[in-house]
């Protein structure tokens, strides 16, 4: 027999290293002579899209075509420390560092352009990689023309910034801290499942998600995080387990260690709650880790709703479900 159920889970995640641990990111943005703009960062893009996010941020600040950017990343000898791609921190930390570096660069563009145009900053405008006087927009300098002028003065159109917010180490006895983590991301998910009471197999039919993230720098990529995180959480709920007995892994391959396939994964509906109220770039918060946290409890709660059995041990495998249903039947007698 197939039984449907729904379960909800709401989670929070304090991101950044927090706990007083020094946590910062350094980035630079520079107008190059070849019509390009160079961003340097050591932030690892492991697929989540930090390089895309910082390109968008820098393009937004500098009001320039994002295709103008190229990035030197991931070389210890060519970049400065951006901290880790972990702790849900790169959009917030490196995003802010790039934003501030781009802003510093923009200030230099205004400064040097004001010398060229013999004007005050308020009389100047920038658009599409050009700087001009508002009263004479046709008579503009491109950033790259300006860079050449600046170079002759022995200077560079270059901005570098470090984002280094403080947190405080917790009291060792009580764990209390005025500022433990830089900020918190929240997520609520409702999972709908169908449990086959003959085989114990669980199908996750649908997951509805609402994510409080301040601002999505790139909504499509945020959805990608949410969908991928949810399916990892589903794997944790239902099938993933590296079985280690006496120190020996019994399933050290993908034949025995099961992650969800395209056929197992549900449709995931995303709602991004954007109040632009956080201290990340443009009001953003990090989303990487939180997206995976709610799925397992939401599914566990949905299974309870479907069959009236509560599970306290993950993963909730077909065997555990069949055994629990048998016990439930026995107890009902």
């Amino acid at each position: 027999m197939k039984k449907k159920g729904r379960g909800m889970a709401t989670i929070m995640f304090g991101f950044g290293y927090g706990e007083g641990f020094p946590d910062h990111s350094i980035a630079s943005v520079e107008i190059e002579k070849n019509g390009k703009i160079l961003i340097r960062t050591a932030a690892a893009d492991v697929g989540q899209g930090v390089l895309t996010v910082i390109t968008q941020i820098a393009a937004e600040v500098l009001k320039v075509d994002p295709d103008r950017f190229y990035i030197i990343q991931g070389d210890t000898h060519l970049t400065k420390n951006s901290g880790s791609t972990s702790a849900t921190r790169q959009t917030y930390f490196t995003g802010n560092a790039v934003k501030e570096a781009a802003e510093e660069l923009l200030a230099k563009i205004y400064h040097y352009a004001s010398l060229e145009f013999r004007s005050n900053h308020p009389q100047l405008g920038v658009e599409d990689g050009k700087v001009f006087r508002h009263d004479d927009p046709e008579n503009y300098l491109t950033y790259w023309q300006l860079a050449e002028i600046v170079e002759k003065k022995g200077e560079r159109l270059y901005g570098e910034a470090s984002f280094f917010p403080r947190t405080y180490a917790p009291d060792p006895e009580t764990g209390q801290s005025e500022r433990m983590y830089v900020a918190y991301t929240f997520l609520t998910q409702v999972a709908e499942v169908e449990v086959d009471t003959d085989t114990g197999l669980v199908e996750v039919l649908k997951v509805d998600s609402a994510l409080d993230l301040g601002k999505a720098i790139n909504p499509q990529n945020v959805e990608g995080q949410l969908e991928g995180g949810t399916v990892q959480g589903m794997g944790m709920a239902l099938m993933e387990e590296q079985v280690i007995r006496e120190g020996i892994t019994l399933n050290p391959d993908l034949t025995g260690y099961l992650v969800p396939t395209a056929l197992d994964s549900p449709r995931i509906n995303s709602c991004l709650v954007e109040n632009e109220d956080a201290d990340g770039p443009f009001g953003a918060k990090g989303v990487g880790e939180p997206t995976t946290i709610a799925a397992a409890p939401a599914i566990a709660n949905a299974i309870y709703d479907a069959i009236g059995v509560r599970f306290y041990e993950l993963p909730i495998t077909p065997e555990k479900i069949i055994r629990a249903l048998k016990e439930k039947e026995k107890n009902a007698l």
Partner: protein
Amino acid sequence: MTGIVGSNFLKVDARDKVTGRAIYPDDIYFDDLLYVKVKRAPHPHAYLRKLDVSKAEELPGVVKVITATDYPDLNKFGLIIKDQPVLVGIGEKMRYLGDALAIVVAESREIATRALDLIRVEVEELEVISDPLRAMDDDAPAIHEDGNILITHYLDKGDVEKGFAGADIIVEREYRTQHIDQLPLQPEAGVGLYDEESGVIKLWVATQWLHDTQADIAQSLGLPREKVRIIQPAIGGAFGKREDISVHIHLALAAMATGRPVKLTYTREESMITQSKRHPMIIRAKTGATKDGYLTAWQVEVIGDAGAYASSSPAVVHKGMYHCTGPYNVENVRGVSHAVYTNNTYSGAMRGFGTTQMAFAYESQMDILAHELGLDPAQFRLQNAYQVGSLTPNGQVLSRSVNVRETIKKAIEMSDWKGVRVE
């Protein structure tokens, strides 16, 4: 050119990835490339008594077999505590099946693999501790010198006794979670090259934390940081698994020992056995609430299986504890967390960093309480959820961007939530 932020700007690296042109570490080749394989511990907890690599060295095509004897001055490595040996030496201990005993460098993968089989290992077996509860016993053999409890943290806010006394209902349960592999699709891999003239070791490898990985490699090899250069190719997923050292130091040694470019690629099995896991946790949670559905006290005890080495454990397990109430207002909170060494594959960072396991516990507790109180679980969550001004278990005031109630309301709307069956 505004409105780029907030738009679905296409991924800057996608074009390379859909055409197969993106270069991942294993995609790098040199003409005179050598292949590296690592001989790993045959037992999860034992002293290494004899290591005979002579037969392996005799195998035609084997260029070098490196053991701890060749590099007696190597320092241990680790993300927070440096407790992990690069190579287990004679008389030293292997603590899990991923510990390295020897590094084989050969002209082909096949020769390197064959050579592994020719290495003779003799060990003195010790009790294998696979269960963190056993590890905490007084009579359990110590896996590391300072005992098996790696670290303990405490949490104390308000007065839980008072909180429980004021509760109409108390739910107390024990939750357990499993070993999970982050399973990035690309197994650990890298290429190394040593430039004798400059003394710089170049490593094309993935890491989630470029400069810290560089620093850890350098300290382990006793080199100044600038002598280790990491160049990050495309990274085939991470999820926490690429925070720890994997191929890096072994590649550096192989490159220095041979002067030729070297490649080390893990098999999936090697990746699963050798590299970090999500911590299995035992979470004992006790939660009190009033009959009109407000939380009064929350208490947790957390035991995290750290496995054989510390990795991120000193940060992960208590981070889970610090999130023990979820996003809900609770005045009185108390907790204790232990990270415990065992002979299992070591645990480290994985997406959620301890809070993923804890969410299973607190969101189950919330669901149980709602059902026992006869409240709609969504309403129960809503009325306890944080808002601006709420205090976390750590006593941090949430001053801005606290829209958790809005997420609950949206989820209710999206799912057409009309409550679940209430018993």
